[in-house]
């Protein structure tokens, strides 16, 4: 049905809306977005979907292959591990540790980092190339190494790993926010708002923020992908989540001893991790391209 045109002004979609319109054209990216929504869903309602507990053992069903093979049992759809624990239950519970917790950590450090970055950029006068150089140097150190340093101080454990990743993420968001505001600072629309005499708070939330939110979204997806990978890597190195926790990385680490006898115990957590990371990276890359295309117009 054609929309009756009552007004003569053009409908201009906001920057974020235009990015979304561009994003929607890529079918793979939409698929990846659905996968991410599905993972969020199972990490919220996982316990309601699974018949068993994550650490519940079945003595009669040790190292069963997935249900479709000859020796499989339909009670255990993706088989069981060497202690007789249901794989699919552990994978579903693992989504909480390997996806939901990194997501929360990135959200929290994004809030802190963006606030600090905005403060750093708004208080002009501290025109410190020193801070910029130091942050540049800090950026060049791999996040996994920084997390290892923090874990060396605090000792292994899932809580410490999460804390470490969160602390590592904060400077990245700070850096990106500060640079983005710096790039926008000299543009005419900002000068115009300044001439209007708006307060600093208004300038930040109403003038800068809508224009830098795209950059922050990209940084958020990059940070999420890095956080998921790092939490899993620390779990794999046995420095993060510890033994019975069904975190995907530590499940992989435990499966190494039986990898040659029951390969599915090793393959499945890695596959789950792989699918999650592909989805996050695909969404991030498509967003980046959409924003790039919009900037070129």
């Amino acid at each position, binding site marked *: 049905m054609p929309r009756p045109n009552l007004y003569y002004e053009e409908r201009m979609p906001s920057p974020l809306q235009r990015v979304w319109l561009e994003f929607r054209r890529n079918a793979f990216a939409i698929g990846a977005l659905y996968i991410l929504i599905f993972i969020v869903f199972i990490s919220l309602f996982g316990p309601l979907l699974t018949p068993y507990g994550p650490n519940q053992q079945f003595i009669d069903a040790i190292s069963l292959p997935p249900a479709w093979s000859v020796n499989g049992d339909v009670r255990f759809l993706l088989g069981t591990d060497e202690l007789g624990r249901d794989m699919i239950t552990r994978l579903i519970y693992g989504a909480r540790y390997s996806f939901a917790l990194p997501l929360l950590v990135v959200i929290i450090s994004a809030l802190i980092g963006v606030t600090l970055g905005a403060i750093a950029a708004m208080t002009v006068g501290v025109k410190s190339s020193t801070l910029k150089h130091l942050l540049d140097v800090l950026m060049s150190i791999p996040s996994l190494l920084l997390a290892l340093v923090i874990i060396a101080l605090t000792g292994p454990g899932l809580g410490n790993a999460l804390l470490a990743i969160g602390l590592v993420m904060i400077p990245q968001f700070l850096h990106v926010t500060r640079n983005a505001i710096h790039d926008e600072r000299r543009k005419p629309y900002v000068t115009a708002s300044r001439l209007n005499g708006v307060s600093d708070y208004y300038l930040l939330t109403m003038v800068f923020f809508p224009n830098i939110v795209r950059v922050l979204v990209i940084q958020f997806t990059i940070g999420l992908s890095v956080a998921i990978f790092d939490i899993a890597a620390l779990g794999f190195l046995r420095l993060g989540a510890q033994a019975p926790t069904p975190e995907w990385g530590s499940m992989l680490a435990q499966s190494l001893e039986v990898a*040659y006898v029951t390969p599915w115990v*090793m393959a499945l957590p890695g596959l789950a991790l792989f699918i999650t990371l592909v989805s*996050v990276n695909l969404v991030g890359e498509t967003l980046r391209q959409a924003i790039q295309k919009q900037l070129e117009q």
Partner: protein
Amino acid sequence: MTRYLLRQITLLFFTLLALSLFTFCLSYWFAGSAVTNSSGIFPDDPSYATIATARGFDGGYFGQYIAYLRHLFAGDWGRSLLDGAPVFEQLIVRFGASLEIMLLALLVAWFPGVAFGVLAALKPGRSVDNTILGMSISGYSIPVFWFAQLAILLVAVQWGLTPIAGQINPLFDIPAVTGSILIDIALAQPANPQAAYYSAFMHMILPVTVLAIMPMMLLIRLTRNSMLDVLNKNYIVSSYAKGMSTRRVLWSHALPNAMQQVIRQLSNLISLLIANTFILEVIFSWPGIGNWLVRSIYERDYPVIQGGLLIIGSLILVTHVLLNLFHAWRYPQVRKDLYAAP
């Protein structure tokens, strides 16, 4: 250039100083006696009092830091709490082993990465481009520890093509001098060098390939994006208009300019490479620094943690500055931007 060089070297100096200050502070932040944490000598050792005096622990913090620096430059980085081996000598050997697979992986990643990136950029939006981009994103997302395990399971166990772990068959008596196994074989002059090189090569092939995958995929994307930028420039259009062949345009106009942006982002690639080397060394039992550092974190071997962090931190900082310098030296227009900036 001189001004930029001086500025970068000053920056390097101060960041290295900050790094050493940090590792110095670590011996206080770790549990237990600071003397033991920095030197690896236990309090019940008879030489404990001498060591404490030599490291300035009867004076203030500043004197201690100076003493710490003096010990660092003298090559006395303490002893491992586990086996009493001198940290510095061990570090040299392990550093060589890590550097060897890192450089080889970078080399393996470089040419296919650039080639595929250029190929994708030549046909943007076509099926070639989409295939390469899809491959690049999925390859970039493979968790490297899982991929390494799959590779071992398939190539080493199922097909039996390569050994599972280690640097070389232990029956070869190759003393570790530099840590880099290829150089060590050349130095040791074994009876049949061909067999030794062959064994080292077979041990190396799996870790280096797995390590190269992720940087290669990142490189494909970096090259493609910067190549796309460059191909839209006017000078490319004009060189086509002059009647140059595609090959000539690519080699002498597009590629050198596209490489500028790639080199600017190379430090991301290096940090990715270092993080992955850590994980892979644990999996392949490669006697490198990552393997050692991770083990020392389990065992709370504080002198080793300090030394390992110091050397890896310095490696990253020095590479960062060298890349910046190379970038400014190779591309004068970047230098102009730097000087014009206030």
